[in-house]
């Protein structure tokens, strides 16, 4: 789910955009093993 309607329109939009940007950031990162990207913190764990 890209977003969270319980946040209200503005925060929901910001949250959804953050998730999409996090996913696009993941596409730009070289990985060689299963890797977890947290869209909220932008933490990366492999």
């Amino acid at each position: 789910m890209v977003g969270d309607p319980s946040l209200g329109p503005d925060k929901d939009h910001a949250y959804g955009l953050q998730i999409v940007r996090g996913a696009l950031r993941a596409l730009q990162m070289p990985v060689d093993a299963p890797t977890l990207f947290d869209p909220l913190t932008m933490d990366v764990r492999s």
Partner: protein
Amino acid sequence: MSRPLRVLHYVNQFFAGIGGEDKANHPAEIRDGAVGPGRLLANLLGDEGIVVGTVVCGDNFFQEQQEQALAVVRQALTDWTPDVVITGPAFISGRYGIACAEVARTAQEAGVPSVAGMNAENPAVPMYSQNIYIVGTGPSPASMEPALTAMARLAVKLGRGEEIGPAADEGYLPRGERRLGYRAQPGYLRAVDMLVRKLRDQPFASEVPYQPVDKVTPAPALSNLAGATIALATTGGLIRRGNPDHQPASNTRSFLRIDVADLAELSPKDFDAYHAGYYNAIAGDNPNYILPLSYVRELEAVDEIGSVHSTVYALAGVSTPVAESRRMGAEIGAELAAAGVDGCLLVAT
């Protein structure tokens, strides 16, 4: 004859007859006696056991309020003092499977033997099969009776403290446990027998099953996002409003291609969500939650990405066998590669 075993059963809101996804937030509660499939379970137990109580809980409630749900389970264990706990069967349902496994694990931790039932492809199996007894079932409730029959048989043995044999004999999924024992024939004779059967194209079962692990080579990182073509795919069950393509809500064997070249976002007037694994109303009101076209258009407009691929891919990702998922994934991947797409965002639910 021994006294009948006291059996505590666990079912979700659907099998308790409360409702489907719209009732998935139903709080955990304890009911007297058998509920839903528990009545068939009671018949199958016969003189061996009595379903004294049932814990009922909505699938979403269990996932979101797990401690609260498990507190109700612990209360039921205290109130009913069962000899054995039976959960499910959950078949292929992921959230229900995890709930069944957690309840079985909780009972076991409290000193009460337990049996869960679910399909071998249920996501809960790799998470829990080494720690609890899980009886393998078919993928759907069509296999309810054989599933409950096997679960009841194993539950009676566990409840009576009888020795439990190998997985293949008892009907539970392998737990990765090895025990010393004796075979009627030495290993070299069994191996030759297997070889002969293999050479004659006859069925045989290896004593050392091989389960290859999927290995996927990661794609290289995108070096120029601002020049990249990005595609979108979703397993959230995106459909055209009215479902003219007749996409199923589960056990999907085909995916949908939708042309979004002229769309700035997905409007609920034109699109909807149809997925058996979650409450669809929110995504139905705003389909961009399951396929974020509006967001990538926003980023396309400010040149954060090069362009959005004109075709999006959609299916309901629930209950589809792994082999089918792999086939569809390969087909989508081949199409994206042929179209020169640089990266794809896949939204799961």
